């Protein structure tokens, strides 16, 4: 599915000239937030996007008062949560806190949920009743699931028998416990969602790392991937890795060959596809996705279920003054990843600093780098460099791409080492 936003040439030059809707309002004399003495930014969501935005707003302009609203005191990262399933990391290893944001960067962190946004009054209401005023708002709520997409499925079932483990935390622990108590010779069924969804290589790295665990502990077991799609991220590299490391253990069934799930039964642990029924000892169904709940309630989404934004500043094209970053935003061809969200958080922060100074934001430059571990000494990567053109946010031709198919064992081992270095720095750049 091509999510790139088409922008007419006239609109494109307008984008670059003004940077954002409300900056142009400011230039033409409307009472604007841009030139006021107060510089208050509220950030909703403390994941990769929100935490990076909050940190960099304070780092780039200490005169801005930044409030971060995040209900969780400890944030578990989805990156490396598949390593937890393989027993290569613990939940503690993937825990991030807001201590450095509070103490070093003086971000006002409020441990609560935002329940309503009033875009005309520029206020955010919290669950505890508190109301926060803002000059600019950043919304970074990640994903929400379409629970009714697969008949028989529900949030309650996901919390008990059929975990998605696609928001790290208790869901990861639930899937981990199920894998650990499964018999040798059991079947694990993974059901990835249709596009677009968070972390496109995620389900396939998960299959690899569950296979890593099963090969060592329960070698008679099998993994079946029932996919509604006919191709997936890093497909050639994953399949090559599976053949090398886990021959015969992982079966991937595409949409046209009966991979599409049409019904699920949590009591009998049965998945029904267009071609028949499959029973699983462990079922990891990852439901189709949409923008986070608060984005819908604030009217920031369009018919696609995601949030259209001005790619210069990630300011909503629906509600000026509100910026949407991360998985919830429509960021051209950028994948929905924690790394992309962090990159967008920094670009939005730099743009907001300029807008609050009454200046035009710089043309954005965005990046994505994702590692997928297939075995302990075997990792593959995808990279992308993105910039704004008349066709929206596009990947620069000739740049980016995948680990080569003919990479030797040394290079794959190097990539596995760099995957760890990558994790340490991206979480440090975001929360540290």
């Amino acid at each position, binding site marked *: 599915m091509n999510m790139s936003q088409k922008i007419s040439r006239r609109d494109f030059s307008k984008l670059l000239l003004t940077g954002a809707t409300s900056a142009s309002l400011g230039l033409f004399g409307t009472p604007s937030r841009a030139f006021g003495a107060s510089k208050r930014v509220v950030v909703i969501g403390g994941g990769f996007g929100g935490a990076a935005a909050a940190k960099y707003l304070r780092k780039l302009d200490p005169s801005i008062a930044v409030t971060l609203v995040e209900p969780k005191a400890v944030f578990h990262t989805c990156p490396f949560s598949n390593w937890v399933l393989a027993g290569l990391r613990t939940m503690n290893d993937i825990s991030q806190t807001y201590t450095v944001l509070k103490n070093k960067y003086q971000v006002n962190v409020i441990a609560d949920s935002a329940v309503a946004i009033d875009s005309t009054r520029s206020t955010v209401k919290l669950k505890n009743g508190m109301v926060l005023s803002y000059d600019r708002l950043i919304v970074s709520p990640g994903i929400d699931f379409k629970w009714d997409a697969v008949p028989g499925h529900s949030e309650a079932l996901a919390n008990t028998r059929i975990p998605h483990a696609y928001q790290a935390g208790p869901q990861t622990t639930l899937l981990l416990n199920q894998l650990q108590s499964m018999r040798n010779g059991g079947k694990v069924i993974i059901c990835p969602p249709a596009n677009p969804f968070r972390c496109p290589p995620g389900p396939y790295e998960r299959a690899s790392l569950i296979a890593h665990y099963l090969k060592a502990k329960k070698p008679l077991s099998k993994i079946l991937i029932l996919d509604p799609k006919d191709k997936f991220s890093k497909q050639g590299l994953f399949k090559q890795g599976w053949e090398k490391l886990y021959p015969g253990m992982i079966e991937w069934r595409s949409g046209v060959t009966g991979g599409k799930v049409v019904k699920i039964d949590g009591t009998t642990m049965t998945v029904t596809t267009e071609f028949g029924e499959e029973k699983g000892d462990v079922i990891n169904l990852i439901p189709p996705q949409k923008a986070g709940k608060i984005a819908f309630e604030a009217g920031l989404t369009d018919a696609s279920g995601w949030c259209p934004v001005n790619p210069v500043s990630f300011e909503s094209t629906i509600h000026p003054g509100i910026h949407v970053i991360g998985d919830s935003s429509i960021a051209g061809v950028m994948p929905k990843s924690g790394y992309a969200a962090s*990159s967008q958080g*920094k670009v939005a922060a730099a743009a907001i600093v300029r807008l609050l100074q009454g200046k035009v934001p710089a043309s954005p*430059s965005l*990046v994505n*780098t994702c590692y997928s571990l297939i075995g302990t000494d075997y990792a593959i990567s995808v990279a992308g460099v993105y910039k704004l053109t008349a066709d929206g946010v596009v990947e620069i031709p000739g*740049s980016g791409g995948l680990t080569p198919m003919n990479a030797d064992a040394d290079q794959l081992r190097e990539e596995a080492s*760099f995957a*760890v270095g990558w994790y340490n720095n991206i979480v440090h750049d975001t929360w540290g």
Partner: protein
Amino acid sequence: MFSSRFYTLVYISRTVRFFISFIHFNKEILFMAANLRLWLTACVLSAAAIIPGGAASAAGSSEVNPRGLVLSLSCSSCHGTDGKSVGLIPSIYGKSTSYIESAMLAFKSGARYSTVMSRHAKGYTDAEIRLIAEYFGRFSRNK
């Protein structure tokens, strides 16, 4: 009276002692060099601190190119905030503008081996690479 074997042993022991003294001499030279380097660094740093408009204050007051900033924010995701890496990935912090520029151009052309950097470097024009190099070069004593 003494056998030729004895003279051989003496010869070997003298040679070994000569080499040991040579190593000691070398170590002292290295130690002195390190001290000299520390002292010179201290001189440069204190000069920068005392003299108005010295290296440190010049770096602080210079206007950051907004496009250079936005381009460089991408680097910190893997190389650490301000290019200070906390892991295996090399730091950019402290490297000079000319070093960063030539490294990026070598990654871009493929002249320098990398796993992922050439895929990144190909995403930037030479002018953008210059802006990135200037951004991080601000943190270096060697501009």
